[in-house]
């Protein structure tokens, strides 16, 4: 069982909208999700951070009731998604990893028709669709065909569509993968507004910056298991140092330089293209490297990130 986070504990018993205990999904002998447990209180932005194939999307599908779990318990708004799929999904907005907009319909019609799937009346849907088009900055595209939209526009339309039923929980599977930086920032801004309005966000990502920007709390998943759980800041505090010194000595030297750097900083990580020195004070560590007469090709001092947490926990990079 996960423990309630501090803010929820302060207001008494937290209202969990999602609870998973020993959630497991097997495909034959392979466990895509291997006994994970977590709880999400209402209004939280909760992240699943991990590399491709970690089991993030499978977990999302089980929450949406479109993939049946092998074992464990799962409750969404107190309902079992395997037993009450349509009822559970009435509470959800889903942004799948790949856009599945209705290409045969125009932009605004996509929103109207999707709302009808939830059994919502047209008198509600028409003003709501216009409002969401505004929100997604697509008002002038209302009558366009879907395939005329750019990748970022399609993504925003998919998010607008997922909001048509005013969901309490929004599931976002890799929401910004494949988008250019500007489109990502627009999306983050929209998601942040939703969070401010009290929508619970469940987000999978393999971008650490995205997780740091958006998530109150996250679990780091790898090979179907939870490696760590906490807020981005607390995970960095717990599993990494304040700063990191990145050194590049050229691909030949990187592998052998380790012994000569022994004792600098708290920990050393050797990657194929660079050496990472974890230290409270990166500049001081760099001075010590120079003092030992070592001359890296490039050097960079930066703050620790979730990438470093993941590296520490699994020995691998998030994006490779």
């Amino acid at each position: 069982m996960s423990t309630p986070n501090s803010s929820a504990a302060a207001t008494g018993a937290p209202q969990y909208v999602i609870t998973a205990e020993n959630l497991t999904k097997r495909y034959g002998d392979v466990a895509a999700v291997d006994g994970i447990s977590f709880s999400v209180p209402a209004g939280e932005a909760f992240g699943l951070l991990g590399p491709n194939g970690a089991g993030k999307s499978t977990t999302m599908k089980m929450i949406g009731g479109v993939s049946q779990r092998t074992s464990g318990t799962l409750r969404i708004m107190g309902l079992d998604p395997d037993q009450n799929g349509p009822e559970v999904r009435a509470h959800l907005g889903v942004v799948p990893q790949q856009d599945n907009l209705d290409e045969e319909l125009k932009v605004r019609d996509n929103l109207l028709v999707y709302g009808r799937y939830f059994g919502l009346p047209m008198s509600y849907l028409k003003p709501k669709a216009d409002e969401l088009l505004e929100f997604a900055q697509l008002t002038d595209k209302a009558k366009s065909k879907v395939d005329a939209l750019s990748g970022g526009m399609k993504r925003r339309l998919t998010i607008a569509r997922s909001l048509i039923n005013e969901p309490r929980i929004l599931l976002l599977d890799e929401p910004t993968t494949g988008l250019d930086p500007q489109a990502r920032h627009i999306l983050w801004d929209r998601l942040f507004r939703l969070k401010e309005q009290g929508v619970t966000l469940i987000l999978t990502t393999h971008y650490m910056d995205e997780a740091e920007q958006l998530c109150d709390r996250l679990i780091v998943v790898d090979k179907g298991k939870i490696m760590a759980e906490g807020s981005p800041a607390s995970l960095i505090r717990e599993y990494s140092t304040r700063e990191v010194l990145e050194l590049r000595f050229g691909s030949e030297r990187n592998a052998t330089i380790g012994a000569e750097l022994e004792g600098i900083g708290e920990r050393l990580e050797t990657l194929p293209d660079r050496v990472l020195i974890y230290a409270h004070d990166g500049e001081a560590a760099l001075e010590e490297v120079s003092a030992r007469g070592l001359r890296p090709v490039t050097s960079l001092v930066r703050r620790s990130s979730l990438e470093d947490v993941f590296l520490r926990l699994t020995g691998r990079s998030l994006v490779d």
Partner: protein
Amino acid sequence: MSAVTTGPGPASHSVTEAARNRHFGPLYSRNVRAVIARGLMATKSSNWMVMLSGFFEPVLYLISMGVGLGAIVGSVQGPGGGEISYAAYIAPALLAVSAMNGAVYDSTWNVFFKMNFAKLYQGMLYTSLGPLDVAMGEIFLALLRGLMYATGFTAVMGLMGLITTPWAILMIPAAVLIAFGFASFGMGITSYMKTFQQMDWINFVMLPMFLFSATFYPLSVYPQPIQWFIQAMPLWHGVELLRQISVGVFTPATAVHIGYYLVMIVLGVLLTTGRLRKLFLK
């Protein structure tokens, strides 16, 4: 950059609150009409030529075979023993074929595309729709097309003077029954198809069924074992049913033909719903 005025946050509208609190089982949310509405909206922008060709195909057969070949054949024995023109003999059979083609086109090729390329059903099943809503909605759309083809073809028969009894108007609902049988099964079968090559197998089954199901000549020309085989096929029952209705002659066999389709419909809907559940709610 404007904020959402009323806010998409939780429970700001009573209708969304009501939509959240509806209760239903894992397969069906009583919302078939949303799937139908979507289909009609999409049809507005779809290719009308494809739809029209499905209507004209049997009409062309009727003209070439009925009028052309009919001039050589003369009159033949219809159901109940009366002499009817060759065109009047094959017209109800072609109507059955027309109903089959319309239903099969919608429930196979259209569904195949939506399933594998447009990912339409994945999107639908992430809402509060259940697989039974989706299956029933798609089948209904196929029936609507079948109804349009049947009505058009019956009108052509009337114009050609091939309708001799008021009973013939019942060919339209009967054609819809035939379409229902094919549509419900077609969608279930399509769910097994993964490639375009496999989809060609459907044509490979349909064409011989069209040619040999006593469409152009009576079943009695075949040796007994082949007769049995043809009688096991769905189209033969449709051809016989409509042929009987076209002249207003009803026998106990009429009930068998109708029963055949009723069973086909039930099995087809069960198959399709089960397959959609298996494919999309893994």
